[in-house]
């Protein structure tokens, strides 16, 4: 629109009219035209909702009718809400249970598969496959494998004399079941990132160490591990973020139960908003989660910048 209007006004040396104006100014305008579709979608579906979420979090609102301003009321309520505190605790427990373990397993498998071994391409694929499978399918399969009465894990435990474990029906074992399932899903991701990093370590370093008589463990301790440092740090942050995000798996596998034993923050938000109709309270919890994630994201940025400048 503005293109045509001002095109009629401006007209000097080059061919006149819209065409001439466009030829002269396209390098200035093109960037904005090219990013417009992206920015429109982002603004409408991400930026506006973020600002809106902050606003709703200061209100009591059930999606119908108009919001009632309550100030920081929702945030104060949170501190006294046992279920929220439980969800907060569960999120921490799940994060601690999944992050170091899946990174360690990913590193172990990557170290193994970085060796020249027969069939390693196939082995790498097998370890990676769970990453691409929908978490709903994973959750249903895990629910079947961990089933208290007919699940294969309990059948094996019975057979070897340990006896069956109430995996999904007891508050004590539901979280471990989720953590084990998550390890299965996430190992392959960490492995792939570590493998890429391992392949960029120059072989000469190992040769030199070997000449100096360094043993396998010492070569790992003094060459591999320090050089993997940046990768480990990155994986640490990414895995924490993924753990704070987990929804599909828990929603389908345990539904947050039994009781509130596996309810995590993202699920509690969903439940507050779409089961209880407490939009304001749900948004307030969302804001808290957002701030938590922001800390990790800023860490990651800062770190990426550092390593890019180095």
């Amino acid at each position, binding site marked *: 629109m503005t293109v045509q209007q001002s095109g009629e006004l401006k007209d000097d040396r080059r061919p006149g009219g819209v065409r001439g104006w466009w030829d002269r100014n*396209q390098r*200035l305008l*093109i*960037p904005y035209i*090219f990013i417009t*579709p992206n920015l429109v*979608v*982002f603004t409408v*579906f991400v930026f*506006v909702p*973020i600002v*809106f979420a902050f606003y*709703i979090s200061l209100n009591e609102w059930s*999606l119908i009718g108009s919001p009632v301003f309550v100030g920081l009321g929702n945030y104060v309520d949170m501190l006294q809400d046992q279920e929220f505190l439980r969800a907060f605790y569960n999120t921490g427990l799940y994060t601690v249970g999944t992050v170091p373990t899946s990174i360690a397993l990913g590193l172990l*498998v990557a*170290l193994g598969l970085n060796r*020249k071994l*027969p069939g*390693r391409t196939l*082995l790498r*694929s*097998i*370890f*990676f496959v769970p*990453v*691409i*499978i*929908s*978490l*709903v*399918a994973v959750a*249903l*399969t895990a629910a*079947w494998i961990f089933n208290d009465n*007919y699940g294969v894990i309990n*059948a094996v435990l019975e057979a070897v004399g340990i006896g069956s474990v109430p995996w999904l029906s007891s508050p004590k074992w539901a979280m471990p079941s989720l953590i084990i399932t998550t390890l*299965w899903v996430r190992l392959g*991701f960490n492995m*792939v*990132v570590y493998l890429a990093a*391992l392949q960029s370590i120059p*072989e000469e370093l190992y040769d030199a160490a070997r000449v100096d008589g360094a043993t*396998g463990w010492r*070569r790992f301790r003094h060459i591999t591990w320090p050089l993997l440092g940046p990768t480990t740090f*990155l994986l640490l942050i*990414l895995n924490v973020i993924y753990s704070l*995000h987990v*929804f*599909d798996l828990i*929603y389908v596998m345990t539904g947050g139960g039994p009781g509130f034993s596996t309810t995590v923050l*993202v699920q509690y*938000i*969903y439940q507050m*908003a779409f089961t209880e109709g407490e939009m304001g309270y*749900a*948004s307030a919890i*969302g804001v808290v989660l*957002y701030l938590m*994630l922001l800390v*990790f994201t800023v860490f990651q940025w800062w770190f990426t910048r550092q390593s890019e400048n180095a």
Partner: protein
Amino acid sequence: MDRLAPPDGGKKEELRGRLRGGDLLVWFLLVAGAAIMVFPLYWMFATAVRPKKEIFSGGFDLVPSTLAWSNFSDAWNKLPWDQFYINSIAIALIAVVVTVFINLLAGYTFAKYKFPGRDILFLLLISTLMIPIQVIMVPEFFIVSKLGWVNSWWGVLVPRAAEAFGLFMVRQFMVSIPDELIEAARLDGAGEFTIFRKVVLPLSWPVVAVLTIFTFMWRWNDFAWPLVVLQERASYTVPLGLSLMKGQYYTDWTGMMGMSLLSIVPMLLVFIFFQRYFVQGIASTGMK
């Protein structure tokens, strides 16, 4: 465990001769690990094709006594699966086209143009990378419902089309396209659109492939957001259909495993044919 093999070092012929001691042990452990990784997938299949009464027998047989293929059609007919698949396929394919188009243009612009506000805009966009959908679910649902997109494909795919991950991926790739190529075309008098179409696009197929595959995977596996937007059963996608199968008191495990298996087949095929793109995608975004 006496030695760490150098990465990708050595010659192929050495492979057999070397495999002893530490390597053999490592290889053994890896194969055992791979068996554990494969088992759930095998169990999905074994349960799906087992005669229904074998499920609750208490014991466990690794191999089903007979293959009851009719389990699949039984389960398929209990829910409108054909509709679920149509919805899922349509959403995934349209999302691929829209997402790739939007992000390719934007990623190229952020990589190759200098314009006022570029860096701050890019930071702003990338800062949304780690926001879980639940945080903005309420206002986002409000907006989608105002647009009349509840229960529609568009409500699922448009809000996620400007995927910050995709933008990031494209930008990282485009930075590596030499500026000289673009400048040369400009000196020849090519317009900016022509440069994008004739110079940049032909060089971008690798990142288009990666983004296509990732977008397809994200939308095919999507659950949390469709769960909010799609409320009528006729509009459900495959993962929503699957979640319906887990009953509170009774679950048809054979049917459920059969439908789960079926739902992952498209992704398995994509993975088998385009494996290296997955690794590339993760290495280029996870790493950087």
